[in-house]
């Protein structure tokens, strides 16, 4: 299917390649920024908490999208790499007294390096076998965290300071919301651009047919490891934001099942699409919140057990429904809506 921008002809290559290409898009971006700036003035603590957690999830899912959605290397150990980032930042800030701003890039780098190490099997194996290798990565990382008790606090976890600039500490919900949203916007910008680079195109070629890609001269080992590195850098940033938000680092913040749900977010949002990663993270997190509120009502109406595992059930159901009816995810639906309105009021017929 071809979706062209109607009435918007480009006179130069640079204009066509620009990140934001129309006035309308500039308008949307400005509108989004205004909403993000104004929102904490009106929103409750709960809404800010939910939005902050959604923002962190978006960063993490962007990383998984680069690795799995674009490069086709399925990982179910993503939360393990978040733990690497989280604990690196926690140790650097809490034990060595580093500033959050210095610890954050180091945490991202540490997660990236862990990704490189655990990405090595991807050079030899793929599909189901790679999934198993990434699961192993998660458990090895968590095991290491538990064993190095003197450094990580082991199962008891460790307190982590809040980020600060000079004397200003990101202590309030609103301030942390701004911090997370700024990083989320940056992460989205980089994720969109990575795909348009030479490496990004190589990722897509490897995903579509690795043999053909290799024949075309793409060095599989290099690009697969690059995808692992970049994807895990994102995970590291998300992990660091998690521990600083809670002001506490604990292995309980990085449960294995979250890796599965992050993959579910990609399925619901649409793999291989930056917008899809955002849609997926937002929709599944909001579903989670809705289910939390619905649970007690259902429980009062039926029985306490009726609410048990409701969230797991709903998440599973939604993922299954999307896999069957819309495997290309919400991002595809969004493209259709955009295409419909692009030529509005004239009807638009799909070429295929």
């Amino acid at each position: 299917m071809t979706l062209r921008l109607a009435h918007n002809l480009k006179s130069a290559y640079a204009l066509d390649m620009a990140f934001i290409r129309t006035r309308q898009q500039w308008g949307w971006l400005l509108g989004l920024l205004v909403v993000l700036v104004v929102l904490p003035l009106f929103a409750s603590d709960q809404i800010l908490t939910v939005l902050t957690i959604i923002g962190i999830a978006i960063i993490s899912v962007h990383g998984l999208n680069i690795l799995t959605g674009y490069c086709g290397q399925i990982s179910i150990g993503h939360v393990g790499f978040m733990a690497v980032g989280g604990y690196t930042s926690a140790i650097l800030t809490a034990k060595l007294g580093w500033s959050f701003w210095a610890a954050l890039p180091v945490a991202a780098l540490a997660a990236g390096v862990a990704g490189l190490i655990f990405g090595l099997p991807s050079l030899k194996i793929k599909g189901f076998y790679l999934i198993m290798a990434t699961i192993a990565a998660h458990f090895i990382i968590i095991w290491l965290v538990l064993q190095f008790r003197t450094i990580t606090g082991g199962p008891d976890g460790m307190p982590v300071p809040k980020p600060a600039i000079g004397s200003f500490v990101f202590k309030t919900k609103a301030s942390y919301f701004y911090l997370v949203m700024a990083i989320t916007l940056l992460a989205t910008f980089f994720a969109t651009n990575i795909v348009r680079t030479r490496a990004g195109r190589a990722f897509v070629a490897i995903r579509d047919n690795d043999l053909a890609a290799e024949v075309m001269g793409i060095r599989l080992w290099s690009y697969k490891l690059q995808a692992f590195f970049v994807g895990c850098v994102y995970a590291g940033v998300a992990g660091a934001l998690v521990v600083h938000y809670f002001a506490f680092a604990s292995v309980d913040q990085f449960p294995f099942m979250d890796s599965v749900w992050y993959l579910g977010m990609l399925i619901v949002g649409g793999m291989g699409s930056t917008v899809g990663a955002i849609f997926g993270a937002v929709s599944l997190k909001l579903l989670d919140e809705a289910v939390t509120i619905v649970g007690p009502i259902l429980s009062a109406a039926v029985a306490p057990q009726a609410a048990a595992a409701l969230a797991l059930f709903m998440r599973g159901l939604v993922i299954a429904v999307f896999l069957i009816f819309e495997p290309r995810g919400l991002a595809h639906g969004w493209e259709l809506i955009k295409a419909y309105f692009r030529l509005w009021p004239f009807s638009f017929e799909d070429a295929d």
Partner: protein
Amino acid sequence: MSTKRTTHRTFLVIVGLAIIALIAVACATPPAPTPPPQIVKETVVVAGTPQIVEKVVTATPPPPPTSAPKVVYISGTQSLTGAYAEDSAAILAAFEDYAKYVNETKLLAPWRTEKFPADVKVEVLWRDDELKPEKALSIYDELKAKNMLVYRISGSPIALALMDKLNEDRVGATSMATGPYLLSPPKTIFTYYPIYTDDLAAIADWFKENWKETRKPRVAYLTADNAMGHSIEIPELRAYLEKIGYEFVGAQYVPLVPTSPPTTQLLWLKENKVDLALGVMINPGSQPTYKEMVRLDMGPNRGYKITFGTGTPSHLQVFLPAMGADLAEGYVVGGGFLGFDDPAPGMKFLNDLQTKYRPTKKVTHVMYVGGLLEAMIQTEALRLAMQTTPADKLKPVDVLENGFYKIKNLDTGGLSATPITYGPGKIEGVNKVRVDQIQKGKIVNVGLYPARGLYKHE
């Protein structure tokens, strides 16, 4: 228009409708519960003698109140999804029953004379946190915005995530988890059974009392591989064990919910000639562990003599029926609750509550006892706070300082090992530990030992 396009549009419409339906349900208010039939006692004169007769009266809706009663909430976060699902469901049921009892009678327990304020209604407010810290955080914010004055902790992950926040906000909370992390330093989370290290010290005291050999008994940890299980590894407990004459051997870990029998860990105990294994586990962990122990012919009355004792999240009342008398023989729990057939007034009250409010679907899980204790403690904290501040002006800090901290010798009718006392820095409500063992298919109380208060916080 192509069929493909129509399918996509239909799908989008369905997704949209589902979202609208979810929001609509979320905003809906649950219907008011119908009051159950009540038994009314009347005095009548029969043949010149006054007699008390009981009449079943179908409750009629009460007349509309002149002013709406003030509402205070109890409960907080629950973990109806995950490893603690069964415990949480039983606890929630107890909260609901106790709230009904207080609202109907304005009493706090049959053996207590104090009354709950007549113009204040107790409601249960809760959410399922799935034992996930990030979910607990948004739930906490939501309930705080709804003017929840007390809170509850459903497990160690939630305690670790929320303990500093609760302390900062000066919110008092009851906790189903009782690790030493609550004491470093003491914050605003209160326990109603001893912390795990004190449970294990009591088991060690009991075992040592009954040790007949001249050599030192050898002790090791066999504990859950999570924050709860590892929380017993404090130097103070090891020092205490050595002080009372044990030889400490080491530690082995079992997943919280094992997916395969912990054979390697148990064989390690055997090879190292361990006499007493101590740990903290929940039933889904202790049951398969003990089953494997029996298979390896390990136990107090088996080929290889070893006693296995755990802290209270593993319940004998669940363990015994699940395992059967033979397999369960000899297992020990410290800090456990009473059985449902115990004659203590608290247990009679508990059974009466269930008979009244859930006659056909009684909760048989022992954590109903824990839930009733938590509900009693939270309600007592609210009642005490309302003695100094009116209900509509109460803040969480009032309930903490004039409620929780003022709870002294709260008589729980025997539901807890001793009456409950709290104060600033004193978050462990009881000062004695029950030690129970399964002997010949029965839960036998083998002693009540002092809570040693081993963990030395700053």
